[in-house]
């Protein structure tokens, strides 16, 4: 059920990380989003990093989107997260299209699974469709360019494995007498996969792989499937959830080989501290994509100087002259 891995030598490889950030502000006249996505890719030598490149650049400008009037809070948040995911995918696609250097591994922050928004708002639905088509374009491109691509979920909230355990334990409990001494049902009901795997996995060990149910397009779904597994990188941090699309044409052995190779590439990039173990390219991309409060303040000062109209003013709660 668990596979022992050996960290791979990453020298000579070019490995990229992609992340995006977004924040929003509620103005009197309308609401706006600020987005930013960045790709970071480094080429490693045995001793150090040969070169690190950034796309579009080291500090990409903020992209601003105005939200529709009359959106509910849930729709507003949906719009923000879908748009951010789209921008991340666009950056990833552009990097694969434009990079003159062969990229070996591309790691994206988060999960590719974005649930269909429950709304009648056509704009949000359109954005969701754009997301799916961008996702399929990226997966095709990565497959064509032979780039190993995976999504890294830092803080997984899934409970697929615990639910599975809950289902099978009643049938095998008679063989596990020690479990009868505790109220295992309530423990399993209150646990997430991450909690269990923190104890079950050792560093350099991954969990079994399971297929995830996620519909993109009919054509895409016939060619690719999404797989997930947990990977423990360091002793005192929770495991990573790694998700990756694989061609349906690949046989089981090749599929497992690919997953193991990718895991063994992720391990050396994540083992720099005993208590924190996510891949370095994701750390770097996250740091670069972060939208700082000071940037937003400076931008607002500029907007308000150029357009001194009430619609451009922040809501009163955000511009109180007192700092209690």
């Amino acid at each position, binding site marked *: 059920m668990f596979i022992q891995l050996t960290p791979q030598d990453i020298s000579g490889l070019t490995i990229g990380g992609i992340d995006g950030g977004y924040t929003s502000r509620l103005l009197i006249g309308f609401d706006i989003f600020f987005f930013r996505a960045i790709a970071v890719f480094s080429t490693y030598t045995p*001793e150090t*990093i040969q070169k690190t490149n950034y796309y579009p650049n080291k500090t990409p400008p903020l992209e601003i989107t105005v939200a529709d009037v009359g959106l509910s809070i849930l729709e507003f948040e949906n719009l923000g997260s879908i748009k951010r995911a789209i921008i991340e995918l666009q950056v990833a696609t552009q990097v694969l299209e434009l990079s003159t250097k062969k990229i070996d591994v591309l790691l994206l922050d988060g999960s590719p699974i974005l649930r269909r928004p429950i709304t009648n708002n056509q704009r949000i639905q359109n954005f969701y469709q754009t997301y799916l088509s961008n996702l399929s374009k990226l997966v095709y491109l990565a497959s064509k360019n032979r780039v190993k691509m995976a999504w890294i979920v830092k803080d997984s909230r899934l409970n697929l494995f615990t639910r599975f355990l809950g289902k099978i334990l009643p049938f095998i409990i008679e063989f596990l007498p020690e479990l009868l001494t505790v109220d295992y049902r309530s423990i399993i009901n209150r646990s997430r996969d991450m909690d269990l795997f923190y104890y079950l996995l050792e560093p350099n060990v991954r969990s079994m792989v399971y297929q995830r149910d996620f519909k993109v397009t009919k054509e895409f779904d016939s060619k690719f499937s999404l797989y997930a597994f947990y990977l423990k990188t360091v002793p005192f941090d929770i495991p990573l959830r790694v998700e990756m699309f694989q061609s349906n044409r690949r046989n089981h052995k090749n599929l497992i080989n690919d997953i193991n190779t990718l895991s063994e590439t992720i391990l*050396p990039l994540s083992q*720099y501290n*005993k*208590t924190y173990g996510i891949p*370095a390219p994701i750390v*770097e991309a996250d740091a670069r994509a972060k939208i700082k409060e000071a940037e937003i303040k400076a931008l607002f000062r500029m907007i308000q100087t150029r357009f001194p109209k009430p619609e451009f003013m922040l809501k009163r709660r955000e511009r109180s002259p007192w700092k209690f």
Partner: protein
Amino acid sequence: MIQIGTVIATTDSPSLELIELILEKENQSLVEKGQYVTITKNEASIVLGIIVSIKKYNAYYETLDSSIHEINSRNYEAIFPIEEWESTKVEVKPLGEVEVNSNKVSRIKFPVSPGSKVYISSPSIISTFLGLDPDGIYLGNLSSNNVKVSINLSRLLRKHLAILAISGAGKSYATSILLEELYKYGKLGVLVIDPHGEYSSIIPFIAPKANVEVIKGSFISIGVPDLSAWEISEFSPDISVVQTRVLSTIISNLKRDCNNLYSLQEIIQKVDTSEVINPRTKDALIGWLEILRRTFLFSAKTSPNISELMEPGKIVILDLSGIQSLWNRQIIALYFLKRLYKLRMQEKIPPSLFVIEEAHQFCPQNGRSVSKRIVETIAREGRKFYASLCLISQRPVNMSVTALSQCNSNLILRIRNPYDQDFIGKTSEGIDRSTLKMIPSLEIGEALLVGEAVNHPIFFKIRLRTFNSEDTSLNLGEISEQYEKEWKFKWKKE
């Protein structure tokens, strides 16, 4: 001009006291602490400042944990693009504003704007701003910016100069540079009181023999007939007023009877044989005079002739290395300084500079010193008569506050002792806390000049001497070896 950075906005900067900037990575190697920078204020004026602090920052090393990489065979630096995150923040102390067209210097009345570009200052702007004089005496070069430090002679010496540093920091070297320049200038008379005989070996290389006179302490004699009773009592402050009055009468009689040829021995005999002097006064006076006689500094004639000693462009060195007693050294210093100062007041000698090495021995703040009063007098009044002092010391805290505070220019080399640093801060005008903080980090041969001589404190490297003087001093091992050889030789001989 080379652009090195951009002014940033922080809670403290830009203000009238501080300007913070972020350095451009490609020009980082051109920047160093103590360097002068120019910040564009507007089209008409620029602000000149000095770099007082340089801080590097890297978010990847913000926490202690981040440097732990014991799990991985790859180093931390081999995983993260750490270099990309390194930024350098520089703190600049604004010194003043310069009008671009007229070069007029004024104090800053309004800060520069965030986003202003920062450049390495050009030598001409720095010279103008600091008040350097291209025709002045050349002491060295600014530690950065490649500017010759030429100081106006009058500004440097007229209101006295103090050279302060720990032992071995280069005081004597700096002084020799000053003497070299003064010889070239050729119009001042210079007297060096040299307790360790350091200059007698150097100075002959600086100037031709005709312009240098080295007087060994053992050849100095003070002519008693040239001294009044009150002057004798200055050498021995324990002589009371009554005793001095008695001494005065005896000296008058001797001048009349001996045709101005007598020494302390004759005075003692006269006191001893006098029948009019109170026996208690007589005994005490004889006792004090006997102590003075045993210094062997006094005779019937003064040597050398002080009135002919000082000439324009001449350097006179009193080499007191052969004199062990501090009191004896002080007596010589008192006699020479007093006589020369008087001659200068009468304009019988050229404008003069009196260089006093180990000045804390001749003019201490605490304890008795017979030469203290004359040094303090010259420090207070010498300016009016063009008689200047150059006080050199490794323990400024032990020096007379009166004398040191009258030295309007201070040349400070490395000083480590916190009490001395504190004392310098209190006695030196124009030295602020940030400048004071930089003194312990001065390298050997690096100096800080503050006060009247320059518009702002400057850090500079003392220039090399123009003559080749080989360092003949031996290290401890060499000197021990030499001693052992000589000792064995003597032993064999015996």
